[in-house]
């Protein structure tokens, strides 16, 4: 009989708890969020544009930047603040006061409930001048709903250099409904995933490199036989399903980080020819394989509830492969973490099997100006400084030189003292969005990562799908119902705990159809088609 903790009543209790606890598992669901564009904007232009342009009109000044009045800018970044933020802030403010007659307050959301806070910050309309955006913060959805100011007119006036610095293709790529709402990062990286595995064990037991489904299974089998105490796959909560990518039929699937929308197979080479892989032979094959993995003990039987699994388990030597969420940078970190342990690890990027890789989409890291901003011009001018002025940039990316970091003779980033206890670790302000490739400093472990990037670059093709700003309003209820059905019926299949896979898949398909699968898939396909036509694919 707990005393009522939420004195303010019932209201949004569900959604708030939701947001708090979600952390950001949103990745798996919101991968679907697809994105901005033609049909999608049919409704978005109607709702967002008129008022948005109105806001822009009041915001656009007659002449260039007017700095006569001193202002304080509210800057919001997701994640945790570094310990020495105050020091950085005061140093930045010294410069900004001189350059722009402005000071800035850096606010952070913390990681644990950023998604709830992000929602509240924008919905409450409190004055915010700059806020981080990404595909995973649902940039396109917010832009569609009118949460951000369109920057098209503002950019040439308030941040002309920045406007020229970011290539035109990138400005185009972040457009939602034909307008720019965010300033994208120009740093090109690959966040495609791969398999991290124990190379020493592979050599020891003479196992194949897990570069295909068959080899992966041989590898897992060899590990289980020789290391009976191990549950070879380290992934938690069904993330091993990334191995879908290794099925020959699904190889060409234009796979988006997180998940594929609504069980659709969108072939990269022929994206108009969309089919449903849910319920297909390939789907059944994979589910049977997952069931086998569970039965043979490659996966823990209660993987869905096991919170300790993940790369940590792998790093402690208790598992032999990680199948999910290992992009080259993450692999680099595992590499340096495990450097002294005597365990040798290696990396197989999924794109090498698929035959092509996609560099990160420009919306992955950016900064927007919310509609509630009182000083959009100054905010944009400040952001320009952050990206292009080396003093601002280095200070906010790496901290104070000599105190937090040093640059080694060969130009590498070197943390001063224990990196784990630093008051400002590398990119301590999560400054992914204002990375400037010309000023960037890397530590030595990055050399391996850079090597993988080079390898991926050779098979690089543009990511054209992320630009689709899906508008799911027409099938919102079905979409939500479908998500429930997925968790209730598909997830156990993927976890390999349903005894009769074929019957289980049939049940799932029936339930999914009842929830409105067809309507959702058709709705998405329509938007996809007109988007593809618009971008000329």
């Amino acid at each position, binding site marked *: *009989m707990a005393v009522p903790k939420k004195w*303010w009543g019932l209201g949004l209790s569900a959604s708030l708890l939701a947001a708090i606890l979600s952390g950001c598992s949103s990745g798996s669901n919101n991968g679907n969020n697809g994105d901005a564009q033609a049909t999608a904007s049919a409704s978005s232009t109607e709702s967002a544009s008129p008022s948005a342009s109105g806001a822009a009109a009041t915001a656009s000044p007659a002449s260039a930047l007017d700095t006569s009045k001193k202002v304080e800018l509210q800057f919001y970044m997701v994640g945790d603040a570094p310990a020495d933020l105050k020091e950085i802030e005061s140093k930045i403010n010294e410069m900004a006061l001189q350059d722009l007659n402005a000071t800035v307050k850096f606010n952070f959301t913390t990681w644990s409930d950023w998604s709830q806070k992000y929602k509240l910050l924008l919905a409450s309309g409190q004055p915010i001048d700059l806020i981080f955006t990404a595909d995973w913060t649902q940039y396109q959805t917010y832009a569609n709903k009118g949460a951000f100011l369109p920057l098209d007119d503002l950019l040439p006036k308030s941040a002309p250099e920045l406007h020229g610095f970011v290539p035109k293709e990138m400005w185009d790529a972040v457009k939602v409904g034909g307008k720019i709402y965010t300033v994208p990062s120009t740093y090109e990286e690959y966040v495609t995933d791969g398999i991290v595995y124990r190379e020493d064990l592979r050599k020891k037991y003479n196992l194949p490199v897990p570069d295909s489904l068959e080899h992966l299974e041989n590898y897992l089998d060899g590990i289980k036989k020789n290391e009976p105490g191990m549950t070879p796959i380290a992934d938690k909560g069904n993330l091993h399903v990334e191995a879908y990518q290794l099925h020959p039929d699904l190889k060409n699937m234009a796979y988006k980080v997180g998940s594929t929308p609504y069980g659709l197979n969108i072939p990269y080479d022929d994206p108009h020819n969309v089919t449903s892989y849910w319920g297909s032979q390939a789907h059944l094959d994979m589910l049977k394989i997952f069931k086998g993995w569970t039965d043979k003990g490659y996966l823990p039987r209660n993987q869905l*509830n096991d919170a300790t699994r993940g790369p940590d388990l792998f790093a402690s030597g208790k598992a032999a492969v990680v199948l999910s969420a290992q992009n080259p940078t993450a692999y680099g970190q595992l590499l340096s973490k495990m450097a002294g342990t005597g365990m040798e690890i290696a990396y197989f990027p999924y794109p090498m099997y698929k035959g092509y890789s996609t560099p990160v989409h420009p919306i992955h890291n950016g900064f927007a100006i919310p509609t509630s901003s009182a000083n959009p011009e100054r905010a944009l001018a400040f952001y320009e400084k952050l990206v292009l002025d080396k003093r601002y940039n280095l200070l906010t990316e790496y901290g104070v030189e000599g105190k937090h970091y040093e640059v080694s003779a060969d130009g590498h980033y070197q943390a001063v003292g224990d990196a784990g206890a630093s008051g400002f670790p590398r990119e301590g302000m999560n400054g992914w969005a204002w990375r400037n490739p010309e000023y960037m400093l890397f530590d030595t472990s990055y050399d391996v990562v850079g090597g993988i990037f080079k390898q991926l670059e050779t098979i690089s093709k543009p990511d054209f799908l992320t630009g689709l700003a899906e508008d799911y309003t027409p099938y919102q209820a079905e979409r939500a119902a479908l998500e429930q059905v997925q968790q209730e019926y598909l997830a156990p299949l993927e976890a390999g705990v349903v005894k009769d896979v074929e019957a289980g898949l049939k049940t799932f398909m029936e339930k999914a159809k009842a929830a409105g699968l067809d309507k959702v898939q058709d709705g998405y396909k329509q938007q996809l088609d007109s988007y593809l036509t618009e971008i000329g694919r």
Partner: protein
Amino acid sequence: METISAGAAGTQTKEIRTRHRRKGLLYDLRKNRIMWLMVFPVLVYFLINSYLPMVGVYFAFTKFDFNSGLFGSPFVGFENFRMLIKLGALEKITINTVAYNLVFIGLGNAFAVTAAILLNEIAGKFFKRITQTVMFLPYFVSFVLLGSMAYSFFNYDSGFVNTVLQWFGMERQDIYNTPAYWPFIITFFYIWKNLGYSTIIYLATVVNINQDYYEAAELDGASAWQKIWSITLPLLKPTFIILLLFAVGHIMKGQFDLFYQLVGANGMLFNATDIIDTYVYRSLKVTFDMGLANAAGLYQSFFGFVLIMIVNFIIKKINRDYALF
């Protein structure tokens, strides 16, 4: 004659009533002005903190749009509620929510009353203090930790329960894929976590029962059990009823953390463990819709409101003094 007298009686009562009414709020404000002054800050507090935000109920009937702000957003009537129904599981999760809470209320109070009475019987002060503190411990264990601890108890591969089962030569149980176990597990953890807390409420009452009652009963030759049955328990009734009314008011709120951290994303168990909060939470993760969230909240509020009215009505019938209003 009769009619006239009846009429006279009628006007008489009416007169009393109007005089009474004239002696209404304004009169009382003057008469009891000190007492009104004493509750005034509290009334203002609730007015601002709770009543003012209630205008937000309106959002349940709008389609939220950032540009137009909260009150400019288009009015869509019952659209959000229709969507809630369309999600398709409202009936099941409502039943689950109510059923779980009834069990929680029943068993939770039974255990708390028992613990409070028995604690009071214990003479050793040191023992009493230590155990009471210990029983309070679970209240501080966060649900996130609880979730991972439950996993190390119940998981198939290396869980403590299965290790023990194997010692005794029994077969391993796949607890996480067997929905039938979960109502028990969840109820256990609920009681476990709240026992110390609700015991205190009862203990504060038990401790204050006038010793004269017991002495008198002893003179009448009542046994210790009889004294508990006929003195302690009846005197705990008002406390129980308050707890009951509040618990009923919170029925529709469910116990989100408890269910979410124990069950998580394990779809196998949803049929037995899904409550309104967890279901709506999962829906909102995908739909990202403020209107729907408010509609769900309003549905919960409304249902809770009706329940509390019924319960209060019944209590009022039985004993007016115990009713909340």
